[in-house]
């Protein structure tokens, strides 16, 4: 089906999220939508999907104007969407999530779960997903949840598919699989809108590219253009895609992990005798395919893995056995993997989120009072410094665009007095300009003489950011190598072959 958007304008109060945006997507075409965080990509897609009502403009399917009262209408018209923030119900099973909204039923509205399972298996096998229809979604790793979202979008036989940053949470391998799926769908004549910040992906699958900036279309580009050109078109200035960092000035090894092991609920080893040390002024990147113990490692450092054994020492002091608050108070800065779940309180304002873990002490409190004026000043400064695109510091964090939410978390964690900085995929979901900025901040943190631990799934990021790289596989550290190690070797290590 051919999709056309004409002159779409969408305002939130006084903020214009989309201004006179037009877009044309042909059947059998993968159309990439590029733009900075907060440029209005998700908003545009939500308008298309009937979640928001446009203030002006029209939507045409096969040259006929359509009006969607809600997502139900959009789905019925053949539009499917994979949302940036998962629209999955954590306590439901995979099958229940997939069929929700168009459930197969027997007589009188009784659910036909057998049919649902078959359907899930069918689609999941078709794309090599290997999903268990009866698994509870909340128990699944994010990468697998993403697949559930995709199956959900595909199940109603959509002619137009919207992928809103699906690859942000996928491993490189999963990303490649998703690209293959998109290509297969293109062959079938599906029109695809694909939103991503990763230029490599754009170059691989895009047939056409539209760039949005500050809610407006700034132009179209062809996939042949270089990554640097695309990046500067998005951000409106030249962007350095390479990180420039001076050689590390190493201090003593202040963060030492030795013999760290941990079991999962069902008794398998998720951390297996992990040992490493990080010097002051050094960035150690933990690389590896997601789900090989990285999450558990950061959780153990933070005090969330109660059953972990071994030792984690920061400046000689044992972290293991301490509670999260104690660990944070010792000067551990932490950026969690899942910002919307663990990093932010969506219903709090940006300012409140920025002081979240320090709200009980100076300088935010004096006596029994919150010092609101100070908080405002503090928040305004950070919002500027980290370039959080928002109308005001009183905006609820949940209303921010995905990338801007990430910046709020980073700003909070880096603005504290730190002894150690730990970040799990700190640039996930960020646009190229912001990535440049965050990388600069991390390097600055390291140059100030802090040990820094970064979990990365992108090999590019690992190689560029790390002074050394530790590769994890099945809960073990396969090896710790300098960042000059050839990628091919790193790739093999990520598959469990030691260097």
């Amino acid at each position, binding site marked *: 089906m051919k999709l056309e958007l004409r002159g779409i304008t969408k305002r939130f109060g006084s903020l214009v999220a989309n201004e006179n945006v037009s877009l044309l997507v042909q059947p059998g075409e993968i159309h990439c939508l590029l733009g900075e965080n907060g440029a209005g990509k998700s908003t545009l897609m939500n308008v298309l999907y009937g979640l928001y009502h446009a203030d002006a403009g029209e939507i045409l399917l096969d040259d006929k104007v359509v009006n969607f009262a809600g997502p139900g209408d959009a789905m019925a018209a053949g539009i499917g969407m994979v949302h940036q923030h998962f629209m999955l*119900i954590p306590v439901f099973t995979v099958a229940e999530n997939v069929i929700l909204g168009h459930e197969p039923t027997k007589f009188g509205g009784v*659910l036909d779960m057998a049919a649902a399972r078959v359907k899930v298996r069918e689609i999941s096998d078709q794309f090599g997903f290997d999903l268990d229809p009866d698994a509870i979604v909340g128990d699944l790793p994010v990468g697998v949840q993403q697949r559930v979202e995709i199956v959900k979008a595909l199940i109603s036989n959509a002619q137009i598919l919207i992928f809103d940053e699906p690859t942000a949470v996928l491993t490189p391998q999963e990303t490649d699989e998703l690209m293959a799926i998109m290509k297969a769908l293109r062959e079938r004549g599906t029109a695809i809108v694909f939103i991503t910040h990763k230029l490599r992906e754009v170059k691989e699958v895009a047939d056409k590219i539209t760039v949005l900036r500050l809610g407006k279309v700034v132009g179209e580009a062809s996939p042949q253009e270089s990554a640097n050109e695309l990046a500067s078109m998005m951000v409106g200035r030249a962007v350095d895609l390479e990180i420039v960092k001076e050689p590390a000035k190493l201090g003593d090894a202040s963060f030492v992990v030795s013999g760290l092991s941990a079991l999962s609920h069902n008794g398998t080893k998720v951390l297996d005798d992990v040992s490493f040390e990080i010097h002051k002024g050094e960035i150690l990147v933990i690389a590896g395919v997601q789900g090989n113990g990285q999450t558990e490692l950061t959780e153990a450092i933070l005090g969330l893995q109660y059953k972990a054994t071994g030792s984690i020492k920061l400046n000689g002091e044992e972290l293991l056995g301490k509670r999260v608050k104690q660990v944070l108070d010792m000067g551990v800065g932490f950026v969690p993997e899942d910002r919307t779940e663990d990093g932010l309180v969506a219903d709090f304002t940006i300012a409140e989120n920025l002081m979240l873990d320090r709200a009980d002490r100076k300088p935010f409190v004096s006596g029994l009072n919150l010092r609101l004026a100070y908080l405002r000043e503090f928040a305004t400064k950070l919002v500027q410094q980290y370039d959080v695109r928002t109308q005001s510091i009183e905006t609820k964090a949940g209303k921010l665009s995905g990338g801007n939410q990430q910046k709020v978390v980073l700003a909070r964690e880096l603005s504290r007095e730190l002894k150690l900085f730990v970040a799990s995929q700190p640039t996930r979901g960020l646009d190229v300009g912001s990535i440049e900025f965050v990388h600069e901040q991390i390097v600055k943190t390291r140059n100030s003489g802090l040990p820094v631990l970064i979990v990365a799934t992108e090999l590019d990021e690992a190689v560029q950011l790390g002074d050394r790289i530790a590769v994890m596989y099945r809960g073990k550290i396969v090896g710790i190598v300098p960042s000059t190690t050839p990628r091919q070797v790193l790739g093999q290590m990520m598959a469990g072959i030691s260097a």
Partner: protein
Amino acid sequence: MKALKLGAVRVPIILSVLTLITLWLAVAAPSGITTIQVNSNANSTGAAGEAFRFANITAITAQSAWISFGLTAIVTALAWWFSLTARKPSRWLSIGFGVIFVFNILISLFNGQTMTITALLHGSLSLAVPLVFGSLAGVLSERVGLVNIAIEGQLLAGAFVSALVATLVQNPWAGLVGALVAGAFVSWLLAVFAIRYVVDQIIIGVVLNVLIVGLTNFMFSTFMSSNQALFNSPPRMPSIDVPGLSQIPVLGPVFFSQSPIVYLMYFAVAGVWFALYKTRWGLRLRAVGEYPKAADTVGIKVYATRYRSVMIGGALAGLGGAFFTLGQSLAFGKEMTNGAGYIALAALIFGRWNPVYAAFAGLLFGFAENLQYSLSTVGSNVPSDFLLMLPYVLTVVLVAGLVGKVTGPAAAGKAYIKS
């Protein structure tokens, strides 16, 4: 391995504490005997199932207390053994323990008296019916994302309207229909304020309760009480023997020789369970209560689903209210629901938002409440304050100790605002 996690040994610890209580009951047991009578008195109605009679059992209180102590100690030891060998103690251990424990307490309390099992059960069921209906109203409302504090008001409205309508039309069934409508109306008010006007759900619930109490009190004193014959003498709703089932010894007469409202309750519990977990309607309802935005993105009408489910729940609570009047052939009395709505709310949480568990929780609370009455009528020598306290202490221990962490529907209490 480091120190044992508290969570892993929670059940055995609670059981140990309770076992110490049984030890204390045994040590402090008064000398005397307790008579256990299975069927009710020989001179009673003689309903179908009563044909089958059991002989009375006499138990020496102290002896049975020691036996109970022995049994509970064994169960506790088993629970420890399971936990320490890193296995989960089976739920049946806890349930078995509970049965022995309650029975033991009963015997101690009835020392020197006669305890009639069928009477105990019958009374419990009667008190439980409004609780069960009320907790179903809570399930249907909270599962779809609305906290329903107004169960009390729904019950009371049901009781009032059923009495009034049944009297006016001179037909108990008309009263039942009136109760349905009244309960649904109260929950419609709840839904309108919570959904359309985004008033805090707890506040509007409390306000509705106060409003219904005031309204029924006012109408009761202005015309109902002064003119009982005209407005407040609902005709009896005859009880029905279910052929076959009512013949079952002991349990038959208790459960299957009952008011039609009780049978409606059985159907309602089963029906709500089935609808919630086995139908499209229930899946969507639960989706709305967990994550309304996700439901919205697949085209489910969030508001309509909320209205519908809350109102069906309210209608069921109305039936529960009708049981106070039609079910017991009583006239309406001021505030006759007497806090049952709040107990129903507790049953709902104790039952983990599951209609079947909530129904059992309702029965348990009914049993506890009934115990107070039966003990005070047989003239037990246990202090009445202790009796009043007992069911609630037990509940707290059970909920905290054995049920563990409960999480309700994620979106309950939160308004959903479309952009």
